[in-house]
């Protein structure tokens, strides 16, 4: 496999990566930890004691919480200093997002404001627009929101009907249309609104202030979860938007929307981490108190299984989240070396470059969190079903993550679609490598790796999964060609393999790096996590691989590919039961997540 620096988004599929190439959360510096602590202190003192009032949408509360975060500077982490921000790295903003992610509805308001609410103006605004809006957004004097979705345009975001026409005097765009599911709509002052100018087929974006004439709001949506997050429909009736509020040029809207979606997806990956760790803490502390049959329920194997799986899902998500975050930072730096490019452009480009990873983190993270909150509730038994218990709120609040920022169905499709597109555009040699693998199929099958040492064995396994993914991609694209998009089940098989490949590799590299940093003894439990997870990946790859091959039916070398799957994905011989128990025992002993 080729090896040239630096790694491109999606390139992990063809490239060997070393532990020294990835960033791991154990490498956060003192300042980053201090910022995280500030977020935690803020959450503990202002948010966690107010969850009921927040969920009841107590008048002015959410808005005042945003303002308080603004006073601490936490709304301006990603904004330039000259606009009142603190220009922190993307990785640092992800860490802040992780901590805030434990804040239930507040987490949604915060990440909407600091992400989709502020960043379109930062990345695509001109100097006047930035000067006018960013300082206010940085302090929380103004709150931000993002209006893409419409009744007829959800997943199909480009299908919006909202129209913009130039007024006769050429001074205003007149907006007409309807947006729905708009987070922070109840109190936001500034909205990025997507609409089509005249008969354009493509979107444009506008900065719209709440006080512009012609805007009305429906009452709050009644929701299953994140009840404290404001969500409303917005109507534009001849809403007059000054022409200077067009964002990024006519027809740039879809590009803006996509960049912001990529960014939002990666960030969702960090958000779920905070929520997952909180949920784990809740489950273990309950399991350490509740007795049945004369024993603490935390002593039962079935409960330990759940606790360990919660840890594994969270730890693996975390490994992938911070690996990708650092890659984005590196890409920003790389892009800036092209000196015609501003930092904002470099950042927006970096998000697009890491679209595959963003979609992976979105799907994997939201599903990990859903597992965690579901099992937390289960560990509480009947108490978990009580609306008085915090795990019940956690369960309801988690669910939205699989829906917004692009549903998980859409994102699963994006993982494989974007990976292949970037391959076709030669950001990496996907199809060349796939062909090579194809040509060496016999050799591959006849020479399964015989590595003894676990890390070597796992690295060989990960490499094999890469090869296998390439085999399947090649088989599928050869067979279906342009009609591949209609084979969603097959694409889902591929996506599931690739997602778990990325997360598995990220976890492997993290544990290897950790061992280099802390020695073998201190890393024992991390190896347990790795063992159990990769074992699961091997099962998953095999199941999806075989399913894909059987569904494709006859294609050249069908039998060989199937055999390759069986030979290449074998990771038998791991005692996952014992490993899970050790992971759970540590959690139980610490009575909290300390991994």
């Amino acid at each position: 496999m080729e090896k040239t620096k630096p790694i491109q988004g999606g390139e992990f599929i063809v490239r060997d990566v070393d532990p020294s190439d990835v960033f791991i959360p154990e490498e956060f510096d003192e300042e980053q930890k201090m910022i995280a602590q500030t977020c935690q202190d803020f959450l503990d003192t202002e948010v966690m004691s107010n969850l009921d009032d927040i969920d009841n949408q107590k008048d002015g509360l959410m808005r005042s919480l945003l303002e308080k975060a603004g006073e601490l500077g936490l709304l301006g982490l990603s904004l330039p200093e000259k606009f009142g921000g603190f220009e922190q790295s993307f990785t640092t903003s992800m860490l802040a997002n992780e901590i805030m992610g434990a804040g239930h509805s507040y987490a949604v308001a915060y990440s909407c404001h600091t992400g989709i609410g502020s960043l379109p103006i930062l990345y695509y605004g001109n100097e006047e627009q930035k000067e006018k809006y960013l300082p206010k957004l940085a302090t929380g004097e103004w709150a931000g929101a993002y209006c893409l979705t419409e009744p007829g345009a959800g997943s199909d975001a480009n299908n919006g009907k909202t129209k913009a026409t130039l007024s006769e005097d050429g001074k205003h765009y007149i907006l007409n249309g309807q947006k729905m599911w708009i987070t922070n709509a109840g109190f936001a002052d500034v909205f990025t609104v997507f609409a089509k100018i005249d008969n354009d087929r493509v979107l444009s974006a506008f900065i719209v202030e709440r006080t512009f004439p012609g805007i009305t709001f429906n009452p709050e949506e009644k929701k299953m979860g994140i009840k404290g997050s404001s969500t409303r429909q917005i109507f534009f009736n001849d809403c007059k938007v000054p022409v200077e509020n067009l964002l990024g040029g006519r027809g740039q809207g879809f590009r803006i929307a996509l960049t912001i979606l990529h960014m939002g997806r990666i960030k969702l990956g960090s958000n779920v981490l905070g929520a997952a760790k909180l949920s784990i803490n809740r489950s273990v502390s309950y399991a350490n108190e509740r007795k049945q049959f004369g024993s603490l329920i935390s002593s039962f194997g079935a409960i330990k299984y759940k606790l360990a799986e919660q840890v594994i899902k969270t730890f693996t998500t975390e490994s992938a989240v911070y690996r990708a975050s650092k890659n984005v930072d590196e890409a920003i730096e790389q892009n800036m070396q092209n000196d015609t490019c501003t930092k904002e452009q470099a950042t927006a480009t970096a998000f697009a470059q890491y679209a595959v990873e963003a979609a992976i983190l979105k799907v994997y993270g939201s599903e990990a969190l859903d597992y965690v909150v579901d099992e937390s509730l289960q560990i509480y038994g009947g108490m978990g079903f009580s609306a008085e218990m915090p795990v019940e709120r956690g369960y309801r609040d988690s669910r939205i993550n699989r829906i917004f920022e692009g549903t998980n169905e859409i994102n699963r499709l994006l993982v494989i679609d974007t990976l292949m597109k970037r391959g076709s555009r030669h950001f990496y040699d996907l199809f060349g490598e796939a062909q090579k693998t194809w040509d060496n199929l016999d050799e591959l099958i006849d020479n399964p790796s015989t590595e003894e040492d676990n890390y070597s064995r796992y690295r060989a396994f990960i490499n094999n999964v890469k090869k296998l993914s390439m085999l399947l991609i090649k088989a599928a694209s050869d067979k279906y060609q342009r009609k591949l998009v209609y084979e969603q089940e097959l694409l889902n098989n591929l996506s599931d393999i690739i997602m778990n490949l990325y997360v598995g590799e990220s976890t492997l590299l993290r544990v290897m790096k950790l061992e280099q940093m802390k020695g073998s003894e201190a890393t024992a439990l991390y190896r347990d996590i790795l063992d159990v997870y990769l074992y699961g990946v091997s099962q998953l790859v095999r199941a999806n691989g075989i399913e894909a091959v059987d569904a494709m039916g006859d294609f050249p070398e069908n039998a060989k590919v199937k055999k390759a799957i069986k030979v290449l994905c074998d990771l038998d011989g791991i005692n996952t039961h014992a490993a899970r128990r050790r992971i759970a025992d540590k959690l139980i002993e610490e009575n909290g997540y300390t991994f």
Partner: protein
Amino acid sequence: MKILVTLGNVPDTTTKARFADGDTHLDMTGVQWIINPWDELALTRAMELKEDAANPVDHVTVVTVGTQEAEPTIRKALAIGADDAIRVNAEAKDAWFTAQQIAAAVKDQDFDLILTGIESSDYNGAAVGGMVAELLDLTSISAVSGVELNGNEITLHRDIDGGSETVQADLPLVAIVQKGIAKEPRIPAMRGIMMARKKPLQVVDPVEADALTSYNHFELPQPKPPCKMIDPEHVEELVSLLQNEAKVI
């Protein structure tokens, strides 16, 4: 006017205590360190005094006795607003050792007011403040829950049994403070965190000093026995349990 706040670097209050070396030492692996909560409140009050334009306070220094591992705690104090910091590069062995180090590090710096937390949340020795005052030959007033400045005069409020006491004193002085001295500790803001990087943190070598004590043995309290539920119908059973088992009546 210059204020000094002493800072203890202590394990986070939610840390699970573990012992090492035959229960003679606290096992500090994996511990999350924080500013001793009483010291943190003292620092908060020091910042309030400095920020109040009516006071002539122009400088707040923090001092800690600790190894490099204590630096995150010190940076946090700088991020909260202290102007500079001194770290005496030594493990804080016991109260006497710590007090001598602090006194030696600051004796030539003419601090007008020294605020120390009444105790630390790890060993709860409640001794350093008084010792520092003695070593610096300063007045010390303990159990202080309020400090106000008026020119060179200081007014202190103390909680005493069943009431409170107001004391007037001259500076310089050591005020040994308890909860109530400030409402809530401050959360370092981003601006403070960014500035903390650039503030002076002076590391000084420890002076020759003996610890007067050493730890022989630590043990954890017995785990709480499970709660017994008694039917409201059976008051006599409750009385009997309280009398014979719990032996409290």
